[in-house]
């Protein structure tokens, strides 16, 4: 299988475009020829040492660096953009195939009121992404942009029709397989005149995506001298409803994928399907949200033989809440696209001011719970290469994969003090990460206090505790086991500088001492951060921003700017 590479022509074209920027009369106040140039630049680096305890390996080249620059040129309804990426070498947590540098994104676009056309690399999502989502998440190293053409029509208000075709990005190449899709959405309140002012708001949508890939030889030792008769075109369709009536909303989406034998489903020929239901009751100060999902065999990839996170055409998100506190997200749940079903409930309540419970400023209560299990598998005869896949009982449940319940109470104690206390209980099945073992039962408590000393100085204190029934076992080598305690102090000065010191320590049945010092400076849209110490991978919210970070041991730095 051969792949395309960025060719000399594109490089020359780009050089011309950039040179012309310098040659044209420099009208800084108005931009270039009536248009504007904006962009953002980010440079991340780390000097990481080996540390067997946190699992960071020795880095021969000492310094690892990821950098990117996005440049956007806008002139009226015309847009053009490029993105230059450099991974020399990719930081820990990023796939080593990113090593190198080059133009990762280039496009030209016309965005009008009724018509939008983009040629080049683009991102797009149909509905909630169950059949198509081309997106990028720079911190997770995901970029499955499509190189091709994307057209959106808005002929009348409330109607959107999209059509696209392209090839998916795969590190520094593009996949040979073709992805094409059509999506339509109708907002009935805009289209049906009598409904325009109705309390019932209703939007319907539907889409279809198909992928074409060349055949290949897939064999199995159980069926000698035969190869699989592979479907070269794989299709997936979805229909969705988004409804709101007064304080109630209801969203439902159903997706179905045709025969798609791939390495992700063991080369079986069964259909895939996914159903998502979400209902909300909310009014100012109180809301209830319930979400149910069932996913079976919905790994829709651009190439059937590619494992891992690359080349996904669709996106099936996890059904759990994204926790921001370190110990609550220590055992994160990852979607099992081969099959899972889950339920999540969320309740938020704002206790009013000047009540017994609310005190002077009021109090916020937030309760969240989620349960995810595998599917109820009733038959495994089809679960072989060339078979029809597992048979399942639609409404039954399988093994417990994950469960959690958290309650968060936030209260302003005085004009300068704000306290948030969180308690949570978690059940985690190592199967989620591909390991066998007993379930982990964890209890977490978090205390988060912000003290606005005066106009220029703000202090934040965070204390966390994790009690687990798991013990560190050198055979499994799961470094999260055991009981942990964490402390963090963050000092912000003049809304520009910050320094934070934190430590996570396994005091019982575990190993690990993750200490970290970070210092940073923000001015406008530019931010520089330096850190030293050991860092676990996950979501880190310090110094006023939130970002996902990879595991590291040593010095890290990050510079971001937008202009």
């Amino acid at each position: 299988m051969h792949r395309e590479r960025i060719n000399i022509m594109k490089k020359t074209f780009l050089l011309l475009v950039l040179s012309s920027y310098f040659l044209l009369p420099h009208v800084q106040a108005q931009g270039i020829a009536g248009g504007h140039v904006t962009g953002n630049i980010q440079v991340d680096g780390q000097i990481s040492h080996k540390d067997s305890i946190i699992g960071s390996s020795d880095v021969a080249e000492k310094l690892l660096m990821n950098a990117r620059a996005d440049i956007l040129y806008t002139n009226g309804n015309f847009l053009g953009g490029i993105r230059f990426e450099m991974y020399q070498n990719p930081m820990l947590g990023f796939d080593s195939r990113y090593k190198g540098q080059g133009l990762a994104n280039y496009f030209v676009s016309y965005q009008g009121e009724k018509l939008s056309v983009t040629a080049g690399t683009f991102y797009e999502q149909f509905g909630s992404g169950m059949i198509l989502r081309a997106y990028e998440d720079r911190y997770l190293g995901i970029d499955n942009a499509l190189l091709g053409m994307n057209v959106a029509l808005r002929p009348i208000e409330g109607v959107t029709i999209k059509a696209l075709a392209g090839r998916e990005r795969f590190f520094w190449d593009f996949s040979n397989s073709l992805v094409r899709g059509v999506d339509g959405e109708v907002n009935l309140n805009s289209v049906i005149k009598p409904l325009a002012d109705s309390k019932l708001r209703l939007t319907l949508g539907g889409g279809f995506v198909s992928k074409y890939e060349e055949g290949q030889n897939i064999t199995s030792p159980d069926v000698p001298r035969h190869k699989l008769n592979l479907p070269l075109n794989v299709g997936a369709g979805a229909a969705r409803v988004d409804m709101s009536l007064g304080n109630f909303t209801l969203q439902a989406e159903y997706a179905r994928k045709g025969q798609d034998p791939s390495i992700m489903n063991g080369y079986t020929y069964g259909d895939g399907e996914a159903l998502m239901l979400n209902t909300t009751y909310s009014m100012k100060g109180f809301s209830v949200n319930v979400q149910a999902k069932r996913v079976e065999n919905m790994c829709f990839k651009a190439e059937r033989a590619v494992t891992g996170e690359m080349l996904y055409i669709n996106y099936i998100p996890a059904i759990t809440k994204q926790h921001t506190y370190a110990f609550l997200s220590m055992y994160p749940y990852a979607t099992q696209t081969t099959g899972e079903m889950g339920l999540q409930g969320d309740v938020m309540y704002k206790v009013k001011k000047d009540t017994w419970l609310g005190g002077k400023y009021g109090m916020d209560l937030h309760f969240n719970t989620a349960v995810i299990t595998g599917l109820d598998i009733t038959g495994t005869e089809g679960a072989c290469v060339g078979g029809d896949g597992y048979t399942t009982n639609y409404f039954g449940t399988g093994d417990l994969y994950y469960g959690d319940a958290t309650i968060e109470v936030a209260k302003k104690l005085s004009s300068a003090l704000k306290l948030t206390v969180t308690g949570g209980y978690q059940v985690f099945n190592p199967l989620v990460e591909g390991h066998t073992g007993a379930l982990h039962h964890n209890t977490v408590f978090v205390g988060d206090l912000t003290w606005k000393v005066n106009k220029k100085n703000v202090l934040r204190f965070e204390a966390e505790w994790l009690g687990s029934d798991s013990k560190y076992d050198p055979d499994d080598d799961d470094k999260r086991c055991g009981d942990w305690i964490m402390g963090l102090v963050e000092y912000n000065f003049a809304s520009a500088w910050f320094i934070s010191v934190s430590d996570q320590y396994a005091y019982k049945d575990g190993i690990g001492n993750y200490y970290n010092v970070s210092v940073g400076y923000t001015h406008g849209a530019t931010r520089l951060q330096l850190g030293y110490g050991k860092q676990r991978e996950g979501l880190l919210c310090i110094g006023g921003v939130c970002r996902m970070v990879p595991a590291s041991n040593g010095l890290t730095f990050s510079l971001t700017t937008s202009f």
Partner: protein
Amino acid sequence: MKKILFTLILAAAATIGMAQNATLPQNITIKALDGSSVQTSVIQNDGKPIIISFWATWCKPCNRELNTIKEVYEEWQEETGVKLVAISIDDARSASRVKPWVDGQGWDYEVYIDQNQDFKRAMNVVNPPHTFVLNGKGEIVWQHASFVEGDEEELLEAVRKAMEN
């Protein structure tokens, strides 16, 4: 060859600075809380300043920012007529929780969901929270990344300045 390109790009970027006033992109699709798709051209405030804040339900500093501004929002509106438009970058995992979140927190802002982050990319937002101030003509006159208690004073100053334009 690639190094030359990279240097050129950086040089181009460096020469631009803040002197240029870009305007708000008009035709990017975002979702309103009732489920309908709208264009970013709906972000209007009758010639008065607008604050655009990119946030997410999982971003604590974003919530601190929007809750801090909530306490002074009425005063700000009386003084400057400013409108705050909060753009959520929650993706399919948490997008369905945006409306209950907004209601649960008791916010009065105009909220839209940028589920595939098209608006975020067009505005060059890297990490949330990222806040912009637009003047009456729809030009971006101020932007700031990150939020710490006290930053709302700077934001109000920027809005006052935007009124003068």
